[in-house]
């Protein structure tokens, strides 16, 4: 009985201390990790979408709360004088969530560009969604009112062959971004101007 108590106490104590230490390290590094992700994951995506902006979208961003969610919206000034916004949405892919950064030109109300940020899809198949231009270029120029879906689901996007689930997930993320853009249009307009 005595030994049983001792085992329980030691294990519980160790687990509690470990949990406390981890929580402290986690909250201590959270800001730096977010900054690193901005630099190495979201940064390249933003730069590829907003290559032609006159400002640095990574520095011009603001937080927008949607319900309970906090979203970072990146703002780019276009050479034409208009403004573009970009934010990240997620779709459910084959190997987990796929993050897609969606850039929208607020002047023409069309998609400026999209870029996959995080994914864990099969290399050579679903992973093509990140770099295959013939797939990613299909989204550019679509109006924000468009229904984004793969052709199998009655949409206009040709899926990557062998990776329909991934293509669907990307479409799902982009469709959600467009929906959210329309919902928040007034808010965005106010903040940007």
């Amino acid at each position: 009985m005595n030994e049983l108590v001792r085992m329980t106490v030691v294990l519980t104590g160790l687990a509690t201390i470990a949990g406390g230490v981890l929580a402290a390290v986690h909250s201590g590094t959270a800001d730096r990790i977010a900054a690193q992700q901005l630099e190495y994951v979201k940064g390249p995506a933003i730069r590829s979408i907003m290559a032609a902006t006159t400002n640095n979208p990574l520095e011009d961003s603001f937080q927008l709360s949607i319900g309970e969610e906090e979203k970072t919206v990146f703002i780019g000034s276009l050479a034409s004088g208009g403004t573009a916004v970009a934010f990240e949405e997620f779709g459910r892919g084959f190997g987990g969530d796929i993050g897609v950064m969606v850039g929208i030109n607020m002047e023409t109300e069309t998609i400026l560009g999209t870029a996959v940020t995080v994914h864990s899809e099969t290399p050579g198949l679903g992973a093509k969604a990140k770099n295959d231009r013939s797939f990613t270029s299909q989204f550019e120029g679509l109006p924000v009112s468009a229904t984004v879906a793969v052709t199998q689901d009655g949409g206009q996007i040709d899926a990557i062959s062998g990776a329909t689930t991934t293509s669907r997930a990307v479409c799902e993320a982009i469709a959600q971004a467009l929906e959210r853009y329309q919902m928040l249009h007034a808010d965005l307009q106010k903040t940007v101007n």
Partner: protein
Amino acid sequence: MAKTLKQEFTKGLWKDLPPFRLVLGLCPVLGVTTTMENGLGMGVATTFVLCGSNLLVSLLRQAIPPRVRIACFVIIIAAFVTVVELLMQAYTYPLYLKLGVFIPLIVVNCIVLGRAEAFAYKNKVSSSVADALGIGIGFTLSLSLLGSLRELLGNGSLTIWGDLSYSIIDVVPSFQPFTFATQAPGAFVCLGLMLCIINLIGK
């Protein structure tokens, strides 16, 4: 007969050199040694976990009841691995992206659990830390060595850290990179060659 601290330290560098002499912890050895930098990063991360877990296990060896010792070791090791993972995300993000799932997998690295069970639980703190440092540095050197061999053969270059890199083409202009060495089957072949050389020397 107690050994000196120096003996505890140096045994990890040759006699008990983890991947090549004991042939332990081969999962990261095969998985991450595509370049020298990856091998070095993985080795340093493992060394940190090894030192931390050996230190704590040795400190708490009177308090940990024998029947739940493995569970206690796993909690300690898992905590250190998570700390390493968070620190790598915060400070060396590109390396973290490359090493990926192998960092959390340090938890199941048999070297770490092996040292806790076979050494730290039975020895005093100073020798446990010396043992961890020796084994860790031996592991790091082995990974770096295998990583540089594979990188040299496969890419014809050697990246020490960041932008500091050398190309074999500068020395031997007719060198053709042998991509096979950086792929998974190449890992087995290179490891086999290393084991062969180490065994020849050790004879």
